[in-house]
């Protein structure tokens, strides 16, 4: 049995709750003058750390420039299918929502990719809902094989898979896996995921480890902020990423703090996270995980995204459409989308904004030559 994160979660949660409650400004001030480790996560996401946000920002900015340079990598999601048998209370794809369901054929997938590529973006994220009989692994593998030679990097954000299936994806040229736990608080999780395979919290947590085991070069984790007490989620998310980084030293970690945007018929955020708290989480993640990518999607508004660029974020999406076929015709606020995008600027507008912030844009930061079957 390889080591797993799940058995550690309860103890980490107990410790995090205690340390979040006990954290005081003096502890934070001291911590910021010494070498930080992921064990400091409760301290840096605590309320007490709120008054040190400016200091944290300067440290995070410096660290980001040293590790990643003054460069932001762009990616775009490509939604393959919105069929889903889960009933996540917050999600646009929930099986209970009466939306038009679409599963793209291979030709359509290529059309969508053509549009994204023509805008310059060469890092693609393939996304589906969870409905293996409507859009299963075979079709995802087929799409990946078709797209691989034309893109710099290909990640998937799909249903949890077995080790064997992740190996198939890696063989097809998929180099990154994104799988958000949504919340690290099992009771809240159970309430929000009442039906479908996603209701199995532990299975979801284990799947990212299978992805690492299968050789995914990038492992993306995230918590959907707003669902549960956010400081605890941010703390456990950072610790989960740190654990994965140690467990899979050959993979790069990517961490994301998406905030819940209500969809019609979906729930509102019970624990809303304001901009200041989001920034604090991003800064804490950078200081505790200097080598991790920090990802921000178009669900955040343009003005905020531009301000986040210098603060530890290294990877952003641009020009995103969040429904299958969205690039080749459907209106942007299509109700078949997974969530509503806030930053609706075109790719070229986003590139301009990144440059205006004094940063370069990397449209390619990976190479197909890294992928494929090994001869040994």
């Amino acid at each position, binding site marked *: 049995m390889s080591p797993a994160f799940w058995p550690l979660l309860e103890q980490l949660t107990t410790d995090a709750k205690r340390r979040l409650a006990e954290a005081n400004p003096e502890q934070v001030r001291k911590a910021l003058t010494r070498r930080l480790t992921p064990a400091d996560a409760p301290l840096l996401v605590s309320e007490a750390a709120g008054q040190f946000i400016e200091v944290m920002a300067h440290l995070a900015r410096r660290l980001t420039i040293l590790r*990643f*340079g*003054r460069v932001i990598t762009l990616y775009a999601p490509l939604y393959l299918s919105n069929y889903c048998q889960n009933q996540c209370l917050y999600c646009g794809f929930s099986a209970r929502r009466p939306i038009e369901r679409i599963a793209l054929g291979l030709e359509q997938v290529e059309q969508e990719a053509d549009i994204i590529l023509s805008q310059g973006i060469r890092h693609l994220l393939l996304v589906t809902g969870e409905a293996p009989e409507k859009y299963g692994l075979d079709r995802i593998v087929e799409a990946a094989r078709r797209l691989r030679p034309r893109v710099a990097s290909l990640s998937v954000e799909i249903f949890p898979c077995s080790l064997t299936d992740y190996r198939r994806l890696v063989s097809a040229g998929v180099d990154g896996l994104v799988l958000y736990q949504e919340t690290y608080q099992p009771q809240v999780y159970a309430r929000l995921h009442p039906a479908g395979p996603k209701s199995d919290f532990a299975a979801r947590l284990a799947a990212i480890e299978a992805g690492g085991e299968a050789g995914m070069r990038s492992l993306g984790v995230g918590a959907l902020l707003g669902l549960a007490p956010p400081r605890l989620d941010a703390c456990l998310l950072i610790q989960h990423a740190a654990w994965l980084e140690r467990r899979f*030293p050959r993979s790069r970690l990517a961490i994301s703090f998406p905030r819940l945007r209500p969809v019609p018929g979906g729930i509102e955020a019970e624990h809303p996270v304001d901009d200041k708290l989001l920034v604090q989480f991003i800064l804490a993640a950078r200081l505790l995980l200097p080598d991790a990518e920090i990802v921000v999607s178009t669900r955040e508004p343009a003005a905020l995204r531009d301000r986040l660029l210098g603060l530890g974020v290294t990877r952003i999406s641009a020009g995103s459409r969040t429904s299958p076929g969205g690039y080749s015709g459907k209106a942007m606020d299509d109700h078949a989308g997974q969530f509503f995008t806030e930053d609706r600027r075109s790719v070229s507008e986003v590139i301009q904004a990144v440059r205006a912030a004094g940063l370069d844009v*990397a449209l*390619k*930061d990976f190479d197909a*030559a*890294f992928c494929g079957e*090994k001869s040994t």
Partner: protein
Amino acid sequence: MEGTKPDKLVIAGVEFSSRLLMGTGKFASPEIMARALEASGTELVTAALRRVDLNDPQDNLLRAIDRRRYRLLPNTSGARDAEEAVRLARLARAASGIAWVKLEVTPEPTHLLPDPIETLRAAEVLVREGFVVLPYINADPLLARRLEEAGCATVMPLAAPIGTGRGLKTRDQIGIIIEQSRVPVVVDAGLGLPSHAAESMELGAAAVLVNTAVAAAEDPVTMARAFRLAVEAGRLAFLSGPMGESPRAQASSPLTGFLWEEPK
């Protein structure tokens, strides 16, 4: 050494007047990078194959590197094993005709330390296939020797982990590598300040490679110039035979004091 005698860096038969190699990552824009390259006086510039597309004449980064002034040295940064590095180098040569490669095999994205075994394996394959191989290595004298025996054109030991700017932390091992090597020793990675570069050159390094120290500076162009001057100063110091430190005796507990003591 007289001031007029040309002092060239020679790698695989090609002469370079500058002993400063430059990286092209982490800059805020291709324009700033281009100005920093110019200020550095470099003639040999490395670019990550991961970042550039040699097939694309419109590639932003490549367009900013004036190929009439700089020889382009593609690197395999991001490769996790020999096979990936070799594959990347072959594709680069097929696309561009460039047979020079800075070999980097760094399986772990956290510290980006080079894997010695995979690096040697890749070097052996690439040399056999006619590449001019410049391997990035930890400061390991025996590995350096093995790579030289395998036919590498240089060895490029790190001064400190990449991007740390901590300076010549591996000074003693690099000293041994310089002493034993018959190929140019290029100190690569970890240099944060011009004084670190000067120190490397004083020690007898043939050249240094710098990237983050310039790109992450508030004013990369001026910092590039500072590195240029430091490399030149360090080289001149090396060539002019430093005086060395005076072997002054310790006055506190003399070993031969008894010779002058009054008999008791």
